[in-house]
Each structure stands twice: as C-alpha cells, then as structure tokens.
C-alpha cells in the first residue's frame, strides 16, 4: 500500500531515513551501550574497569609470567622487608615477594569466584525455571530443599562441605556452588512464575507451543537480565567466602598463595609488621568494591526489580 504513495515523495524520505539509520552492527551497539553506561553510571563503570584489569593481571600472571618472582621462592630479600626497601610491596615471614604472591592470589580468587558463580547461578536458573514451569510436587520438593539449604549461614554450610570433601580449590568451588544455587533458584523461580502467567506465554501455549519451546523462546530470554545481574552481584560474595575459608585455613591449601591465606599470615605477624595484613586487605576490599559497584549499576540498568536484594 505504501508503494502507491511514492508519488507524494514523503514516504521516500521516510524510507531514506530508515536506510540511513540501519540497525547498528553488533559490536557498534555494544560500544554505544558501554559509552552510555560509562556516562550514566561512572562508579559502576570504573568498577568494571578495575575488575577487567584484575582479570587481565590474573591471566598474565598465570600464563605469561608477569609476576617478578616465583611466589614460592623463599628468601628473595630479607624477611619482613617493608614495602619499597628491596621490593615494591616488601617480603613476608619467609622472605617471599608479597607482590608476586598477591598477583597469584588474584588468579586463585577470580578463578574460584567466577567459576563457582557462573556454575552456581546457571544451575539455580535452570532449576528455578523448571520448578516454576512444572509446578506440582517437583516444585514443592525443590522449594523445601531450597528453604532448608538457605537456613544455614553460607559459611557454615561451606565449612561442613570442606570438611567432607577435603581442602582444595576444586572443593572450594563445589562448596560455593552448593551455597549459591539455592538463592538463585528462588529468585529465578519467582520471576519465571510471573512470566508464565503473562499473556504472551499463555498465547504461545494456546497455539500449541511445546513446553520446550515456551521455556526456550519465552521464559529463558526474559530471565536473562536477572541471570546476568545475579552473576555480577554474586561474584563479590563468592570471592569473599573463598577468602574467608582460606583465611580460616580450610579452603585452598596453605601452600597456594591466596588473599585469605596471606591475610591470615598478616594477622599472625601483626605485631611484627602491619604491611603483611594491609596489602591482601586492600586487594580483597578493592575487588569486592569493584564487583559490588558494577553489580549495582548493572542491576539498576538491566533489572530494577531486583533492587534491595
């Protein structure tokens, strides 16, 4: 019908406009969104930058030998050397380089934190969607189990699991998954329940869409924002729990440098020197603030309904 109107010329302009402004390509759209995010949420954006920098440092330390010394090498310089004496951040009680140990600690913290969060929240999301979609007995049982798991303070459950499984970084990840999954299940389930009742889901089911199609095409895309936000706001928590477990000496084995383990040494030698406690403390605080700011910002932009959680 528009073809008849081309004589007037107006539609041409309209079409020309449409042609001039095509949908931006994916990488340009991402770039534009990042710029807008940086402008609207500068704090969250800087959190993201810090986190990205830490991830880069972690990878370079692990795979490209960025650290100036071997973190296990004893007697790099004299014991308890303060920062700036021989080495940038000084040495610990065995004369090991604090900076190198911190850099390797970054790898452990981020690896454990990110892996456990992604797996835990993904598992929670899948279980939550199924629980909401299937309803009935399955839903009831899942919700009771979630309630009971969430009755335990996270660190207590983690301690029990670590005792049962033994201290190693793999087991810390398993313990964290067990802690993180129930919460995500609960959040995603309630969201999926409300999506299930919306007209478009109902319409899809009315025209005979299979359960798989409804979940895949209608429910899953609509919980994606929640999923991404949950991951970002949970990473900080996961890193803190790992640090707490290593601090208590039941997480990652003490021969692996971790921020939590280094803080524990700092606490032990606190009357000798305060630096050993200060640097891992700063590292933990920095990553937690960065992740929290980023998570809060993403939440405000992507899923305001989660505010206050």
């Amino acid at each position, binding site marked *: 019908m528009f073809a008849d109107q081309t004589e007037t010329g107006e539609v041409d302009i309209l079409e020309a406009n449409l042609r001039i402004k095509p949908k931006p390509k994916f990488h340009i759209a991402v770039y534009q969104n990042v710029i807008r995010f940086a402008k609207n949420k500068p704090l969250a954006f800087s959190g993201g930058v810090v986190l990205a920098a830490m991830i880069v440092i972690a990878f370079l330390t692990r795979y490209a030998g960025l650290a100036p010394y071997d973190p296990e090498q004893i007697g790099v310089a004299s014991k308890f050397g303060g920062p700036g004496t021989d080495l940038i951040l000084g040495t610990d009680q065995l004369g090991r380089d604090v900076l190198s140990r911190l850099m390797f600690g970054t790898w452990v913290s981020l690896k454990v934190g990110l892996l456990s969060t992604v797996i835990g929240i993904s598992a929670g999301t899948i279980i939550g969607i199924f629980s909401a979609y299937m309803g009935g007995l399955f839903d009831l049982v899942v919700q009771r189990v979630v309630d009971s798991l969430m009755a335990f303070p996270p660190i207590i459950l983690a301690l029990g699991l670590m005792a049962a499984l033994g201290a190693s970084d793999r087991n810390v990840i398993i313990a964290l998954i067990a802690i993180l999954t129930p919460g995500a299940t609960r959040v995603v389930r309630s969201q999926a329940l409300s999506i299930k009742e919306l007209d478009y889901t109902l319409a899809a089911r009315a025209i005979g869409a299979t359960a798989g199609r409804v979940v895949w095409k209608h429910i899953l895309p609509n919980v994606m924002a929640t999923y991404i936000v949950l991951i970002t706001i949970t990473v900080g928590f996961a890193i803190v729990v790992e640090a707490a477990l290593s601090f208590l000496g*039941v997480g990652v084995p003490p021969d692996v440098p971790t921020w939590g383990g280094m803080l524990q040494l700092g606490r032990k030698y606190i009357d000798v020197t305060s630096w050993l*406690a200060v640097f891992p403390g700063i590292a933990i605080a920095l990553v937690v603030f960065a992740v929290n700011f980023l998570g809060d910002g993403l939440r405000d932009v992507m899923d305001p309904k989660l505010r206050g959680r």
Partner: protein
Amino acid sequence: MQQYVIKRIILFVPTVLLVTLIAFIVMAVLPGDPAIAILEGDGGGSYTAEDLEKLRKELGTDRNVFVQYGSWIGGVAKGDFGESLWFKSSVMTELGGRIPVTVELAVLATLLAVVVAVPLGIVSAIKPDSPLDYGSRIFTLIGIAVPNFLVAVMMILFLLKIFNWLPSLGYVNLWEDPVQNLSQMIFPALALALYEMAFIARVTRSSMMEIIREDYMRTARSKGLSEKVVLFRHGLKNAILPILTISGWQFGRLFGGTVVIETIFLIPGMGRILIEAVQHRDFPLIQAAIVIIGIAIVCINLLVDLLYGWLDPRIRYA
C-alpha cells in the same frame, strides 16, 4: 491468627527435618567413607584394614545409611550427638559450654547494630541529601561490602598502631567478671555488627522514607501534632516492622560470622570449635554444630514470622 500460626508451623516441621537430613548427607554420605577420609587426612596417610574396620564400627558407618540416619536423628531428638572423635568425649559436653559464648556475642552484636543503625537511618531519611545522610550512605556502602574478617583484622591493626593497645584476647565468663568480659567482647561484637549495622541502617532509611510520604503523616501534621509525635508515633511505629524482620533474620545469619570473628579474637565459642573440628575432620562434632545452628535459625525465622503476623494483621490475611 490461629490459621496463620498453624500454616507456619506446618511449613516449619519439614524444614527442620530437611535441615537434619542435609547435615547428615553432608557429613556422612558425601565423604564417601568418612572412616577413609579421616584416616587418609589431606595427605593420604597409611593405615591398616584393621584400623579401618575399627573406625567404621566406632563411627557406626558399617551399618545401612538409613539405619545410621535413624539412630542419629533419634539421638539428636534427645540432645545426644554422639562422641567427638578429636576430643574423645561427648559432643554435647564439648559444645554445651560454648553455645552461651556465641549467643552472647551475637546478642551483643545485634544490640550494637540496632542501637546505632536505627537512629542513623531515621536521621538519614528525615534529612535526605544532608551531609549526615551522605556520610551514613557511604558508611552503609562500606559496611555491606567489606567482609567481617577484614574488618576484624583492620580493627586489631588500628588499635595496635594508633592506641598501641589491644584488649586482652580471650574470654572471661560474663558472670565472673562483667567488665573484663565486656571489654573483651565489645570489639569482636563491633566487627561482627558492622555488616548488620549497615544493612539495618539502609533498611531503616528506605522504610522511613516510604512512610514519610504516606497520607496519614500529612494528616497527622495538618491536625497540629508536634513533629516528634508525628515521626515517632506515626512514622517509626509503621517503619519498625521491616526493621524488626531484618534484625531477626540477621541475628540468625550472625552465627555464620561468629566462626570467623571468634577465631580472630580467640573467643572459645561454637564457631571456634567448629573450625577446630573441621581441621581435624571430627565429623560428629561438625554435624552437631551444623544441625544446632541450622535449627536455631529455622526457629528464629519462625519466631520472626509469627511476630510479624502478630504485629501486622495484613500479613495474616494475605
């Protein structure tokens, strides 16, 4: 109300049973064979088949899993959690004396948190965007983000460096020497309370800000009531409900935090013995500590729910 109470209690029973089941599964099923896990330790120590048989009998793991759970839960119902492997005595005698210490720490922390956070939140809500509000919001941000073990270590560091003084770490019974006890407990409680303080301050602020905009607040002002009466009788009375719920829930969560704080400040509570038990793989003791904490929290949540329903009729009929 009666219906509400019944409904809550019906939900409560399976949760308690599941809590015990989870604790049982974690400690008795997950390690595969707890006896092997204990004997091998982390390093894979050597042992004979006889040792293994003996330990299995001692642990009771030579029996069927369901029988094990049945006999364990029967004991739990009577307050008998079996024998500790590391301390070689009854789990209950080891734990019993430590429970009050942890409860004292948690109560003290909750009190500190509420006493500081509620006024802070109210002032913050009454005068939004004032310097005090900004200060309190920054405090909230820090308090929620920084983990308690870091707060505790930094607290010790500051006391040591700035005042060149540390409270004598350890624990004296509250009834024997109240002053010494409080001087030992106040800093751990503060380190433990910081998160709760920040959290409660945030909830108080947002809850109070919502209430301030309500019609009945304007009505109360327009009929000439003094600002104090408006704020406290009309405002706080309504804002207090979510604060109460959050404080109740947080009280339960504090038992997790005590583990770390007790270890740092050398307080002989439940958390510290739990760490020792984890390090020595003392399964019965860990199991008992987990179950006691889990059930305590489920009970606290039930009480909070009931209290909430009693205070706010809207909940009962929802």
